[in-house]
């Protein structure tokens, strides 16, 4: 009995306690870790990954998967640069174009899965390839920056407008001057929105029902196809928001950026399974998962761990989190049901 309670406690709070422990440890040994600036830096480093992770969480909830988020983000990055630098459109149009593109890709993903019965991993893998290729075609594989020469012999004269760059570079004042960057605010906002949507609305509840037993959900009258398509559209939109913020931070359409986005985002969402012993995709967990990786990397960097160890660390965290989720929770499941 004692053991059972301990196990339940460990599953529920283990990850959060680990997180608190890490923060305390780094605060003690790395000077400058426990400062607002450092906190803002951590948040900034995870904001874009986190936004993508929240989107992929929605697809995980309906027992799907979206491998195309990284490619959607880089496509949004290239599209916004193309719109402003080459087509010389205003920032607002560029943003709308990107959001529309994200929603459209999500719609196609969803239709491929729901109507054409392509398994989710394959459909979104195909979409990923397609987008990675597509975003290179208009510029013949080059990055986009003001002053680049165009195929016709002209020079691209458009610029990233100040309003657009604001999205990536402005910092709001909070206690300290210019502390909180816009992407962090967007991340937190989206986190709260998706959290409320998944946990507290009937639509979220039905999406969880679909993820748990799709047939049963359909037989109680749920429009399963519509919710699945919606999940992929949310995922596509959030990925495009991530891409816009990345473009605004970089200030150029860099073809090589965003390589790690997919894996980092998926890792964050999967680490989220372990938070509060949820053992299922959840928005709060995803946000914590992203933060966990950010804090660990920031702390290790301040302790002079070399940059090339980062992926190793992320991988280790992911594996530990998965063991938490699947092994310990399964054990708990076995002891409560006869």
């Amino acid at each position: 009995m004692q053991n059972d309670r301990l196990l339940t406690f460990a599953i529920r709070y283990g990850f959060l306690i680990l997180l608190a422990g890490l923060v305390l440890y780094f605060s003690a040994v790395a000077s400058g870790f426990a400062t607002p600036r450092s906190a803002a830096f951590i948040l900034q480093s995870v904001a874009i990954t986190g936004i993508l992770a929240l989107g992929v969480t929605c697809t995980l909830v309906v027992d799907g998967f979206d491998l195309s988020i990284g490619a959607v983000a880089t496509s949004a990055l290239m599209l916004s640069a193309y719109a402003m630098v080459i087509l010389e459109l205003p920032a607002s149009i560029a943003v709308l174009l990107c959001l529309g593109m994200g929603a459209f890709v999500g719609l196609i993903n969803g239709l491929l899965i729901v109507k054409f019965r392509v398994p989710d991993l394959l459909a979104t893998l195909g979409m990923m390839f397609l987008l990675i290729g597509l975003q290179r075609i208009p510029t013949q594989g080059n990055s986009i920056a003001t002053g680049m020469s165009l195929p016709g012999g002209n020079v691209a004269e458009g610029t990233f407008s100040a309003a657009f760059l604001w999205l990536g570079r402005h910092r709001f004042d909070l206690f300290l001057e210019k502390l909180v960057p816009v992407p962090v605010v967007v991340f937190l906002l989206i986190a709260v929105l998706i959290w409320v949507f998944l946990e507290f609305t009937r639509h979220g509840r039905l999406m969880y029902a679909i993820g748990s037993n799709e047939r049963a959900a359909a037989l109680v009258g749920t429009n399963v196809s519509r919710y699945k398509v919606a999940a992929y559209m949310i995922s596509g939109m959030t990925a495009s928001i991530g891409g816009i913020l990345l473009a605004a931070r970089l200030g150029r359409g860099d073809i090589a950026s965003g390589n790690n986005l997919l894996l980092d985002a998926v890792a964050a969402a999967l680490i989220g399974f372990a938070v509060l012993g949820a053992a299922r995709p959840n928005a709060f967990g995803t946000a914590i998962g992203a933060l966990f990786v950010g804090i660990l990397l920031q702390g290790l960097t301040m302790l002079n761990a070399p940059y090339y160890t980062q992926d190793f660390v992320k991988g280790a965290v992911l594996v530990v989190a998965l063991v938490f989720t699947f092994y310990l929770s399964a054990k708990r499941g076995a002891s409560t049901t006869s």
Partner: protein
Amino acid sequence: MPHTRQIKTLDVMGLNKTFGQNHVLRGIDLSLEAGEVVALMGANGAGKSTLVKVICGHHNADSGQLQLDGRDYAPSSAADAIAHGVVTVHQSIDDGVIPDLDVATNLTLDHLTSPGAGVFIKRRAMRDKARAVAQSMGLTMDVRTIVADLSVADRQMIAIARAMARTPKVLILDEPTSSLSATEAERLFTLIDKLRDQGVAILYISHRMSDIRRIADRIVSMRDGKIAGIFDTKPLDYEGAVMAMLGHRMTEVDIDPQPGKTPILRLKNLQLRADSPAFDLTAHDGEVVAVIGLLGSGKSRLADVIYGLHPVAAGDMTLDGDSYAPNSAGHAVKAGVHMSSKDRATNAVIPDFDIANNMTVPFLGAFSRASLLSKRKQRRATDEMIDQIGVVCQSNSDGIGTLSGGNQQKVMIARWLLKPCRVLLLDEPFQGVDIGARRDIGRHIRSTAQGRTTLVFCAEIDEALEIADRIIVLNEGALVGEHINSEIDLTELVTQVSAAKVPA
């Protein structure tokens, strides 16, 4: 052990097992002899499954002893139990077969894992071997058929055939007929007779009295983790066995059939399949109509048609006089037609949800404002239903998986009683449900029957007799009989259900 007692094939002595605070098995003594079929009865939660799981190596006992042919037997795993000759066919069929492989591979799978099996598969030899096994079981299908393409019944037979390929000393069958039609079940019984003659000790777990009457040599009743009675003097005392299992006398359900009042649902010239005959059916307010028929008789199809999952082949439906042609479950629910589906594990239970969420899932809209769910409303409505229908649980936030089958089924049915409806369809509501829970459900359905019409689709005649005002018999897509549930001519009813050819 006194020498007067002969050595049993399997001897279970003083078995105890606890899960947490739950004392599931309290000193079980049970013995199986070679060439004997022992029927194990028990309400859900009596400890039958746990007992089986201990015998087949899934669980370790806390105390007590098992002996196989007089030697100590303590299986460390399911594989170990099989190696000792104790083979179990579990209730869920797909545990017993590999659906994506063909019949031949399924039947010979165990030889692939046995030592010295060689690296390459000898297809011809494998097929011959499989054919021999299939023939001995009376299976006639082509062994090259993919198992997933077979009917449920055939898959069940394959699962049993696989078990038989291991030449067991003890064979445990956990509700093997729950998805079989009467003819298919009869095939299984013939096989069981054959195995009994070969000297296999068989433990047969079932809720179905008809099965038990047909094959049991001895009945063991379990209740609350103990053996409540052993019945082995011929003729077997079936009523006594049921009493021992329930702990009280099995009260006959008294039904005073109500004549239909206002018609609610009317089917006109309805054809279930393009080639099946048309029929009419009217269901009235306050009436409970049972639709019975074998597997493949079209009763599940009829339920699906009314619930909008299948289009009608021909004919019309009207609901309260208005034309009714649902094209999806969502549409049907909106029109006030609710259906509790059969096979709750596949079609109804949402395993990740607790009781309250499982119950309220069809009507989340009613429990939310501007899409935001009101947990309080959900919980309150759930608590009311839990009280009314008698779900045994700690609280409405228990995981659905912690409930016994009967209680899960109560939740699944309660789900559709949360909101008033015009037509309530219950497809196989008593599947895998013990008699106690079955009575609770039946009583509740009858007591709430006013204001809607209820159609219950069931395979067993006694289930229909327990709940219905009127009984409709389907056979191969045709309506072949209609009876008011008082002084029914049972012989006629049985003939209609099982008649091979539909009288033209």
